């Protein structure tokens, strides 16, 4: 039990890490990773929704009729997204403004619905919780690393939650704004995906 639990948790961190291994949820991945800070914020919001929707769907898996299951999942997910939205408006308003419409759009993030359908609806609540947490943390790490690549190349520094930069490379090379703009997002993700393929496939 403990072993399989650990397996479900760790698969989200490497073997099935979204969005690199599971190519899902690309919209927020590309849109919010202008900086590490935004990436972490978006990742944590998604993790919250993922964990609680997985838990609830798993608890209700024998109650929900198969025919209308997708609609039920969407209502459950939308409820948790609304909670995240209201909490972020109350406590982290500047971050909420930066992430903009991508917070309500967690509803249509294929990762959340995908885990509900593929995992939570077939497994017990503890397993579903481990799966949600693993995939969520994996997603947060991916967004943070993509954010780091883009922020370093595009701005030369990394700044988290205001204050002075915690990492500064702007003296070493001239930062190119291409990376923090839209085209750079596609190119950076494509090249990171290639890197992952290079490491992963033996």
């Amino acid at each position, binding site marked *: 039990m403990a072993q399989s639990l650990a397996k479900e948790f760790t698969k989200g961190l490497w073997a099935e890490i979204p969005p690199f291994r599971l190519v899902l949820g690309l*919209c927020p991945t590309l849109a919010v990773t202008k900086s590490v800070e935004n990436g972490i914020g978006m990742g944590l919001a998604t993790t919250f929704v993922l964990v609680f929707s997985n838990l609830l769907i798993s608890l209700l898996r024998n109650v929900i009729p198969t025919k209308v299951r997708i609609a039920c999942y969407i209502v459950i997910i939308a409820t948790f997204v*609304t909670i995240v939205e209201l909490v972020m408006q109350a406590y982290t308003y500047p971050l909420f403004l930066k992430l903009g419409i991508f917070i*309500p759009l967690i*509803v249509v993030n294929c990762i959340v619905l995908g885990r509900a359908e593929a995992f939570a609806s077939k497994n017990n609540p503890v397993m579903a919780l481990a799966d949600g947490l693993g995939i969520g943390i994996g997603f947060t790490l991916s967004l943070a690393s993509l954010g780091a690549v883009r922020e370093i190349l595009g701005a030369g520094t990394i700044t988290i939650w205001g204050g002075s930069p915690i990492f500064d490379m702007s003296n070493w090379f001239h930062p190119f704004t291409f990376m923090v703009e839209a085209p750079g997002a596609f*190119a950076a993700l494509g090249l990171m995906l*290639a890197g992952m393929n290079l490491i992963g496939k033996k």
Partner: protein
Amino acid sequence: MEFFELAIGSIFINNIILAQFLGICPFIGTSKKMETAVGMSMAVVFVMVMAGMITWSVDTFLLKALNVEYLRTLSFILVIASLVQFVEMFLKKSIPGLYAGLGIFLPLITTNCAVMGACLLNIGNEYHFTKALMSSFSYAIGFGLALILFAGVRERVNLGPVPKPLQDTSIGLVTAGIIALTFTSFRGMV
């Protein structure tokens, strides 16, 4: 003139895929063949315009009137999901030709964030009804334009000798980056 500017802005400058990053999943998923790209684009134009009108009305006459704006996310996704279901049944019954063409792309649209994103953008920009309708239509055309362009390029790229780790999605994303770069040159237009 105002509408013309809005249309050019939404199609080219703020292209929903290449500048706003909405609807990337179908953009990558349905662009391997030109045929599927055309089917998806048509389905999106159809649903996005209808969803734009209905969500605008729901927001104005229901949510704002009753002062329950915090239910926006929940109600919009329900409206879009049921709209897609309804459109599917309606087309199957009355326009079988179009249904056969759009076929499998219709159910996929529920989780297409471009549709919901366009609706939320209309509300966020506080457009009135005609403007919201116009902007939904322009966003949908922009979506189709980007998807069809990308599918054409991708068909050619996949014929070439692509290095193994870069194959498929990876080279697709880099290609999309280059297309996005060409779209940035529209910025000075309006």
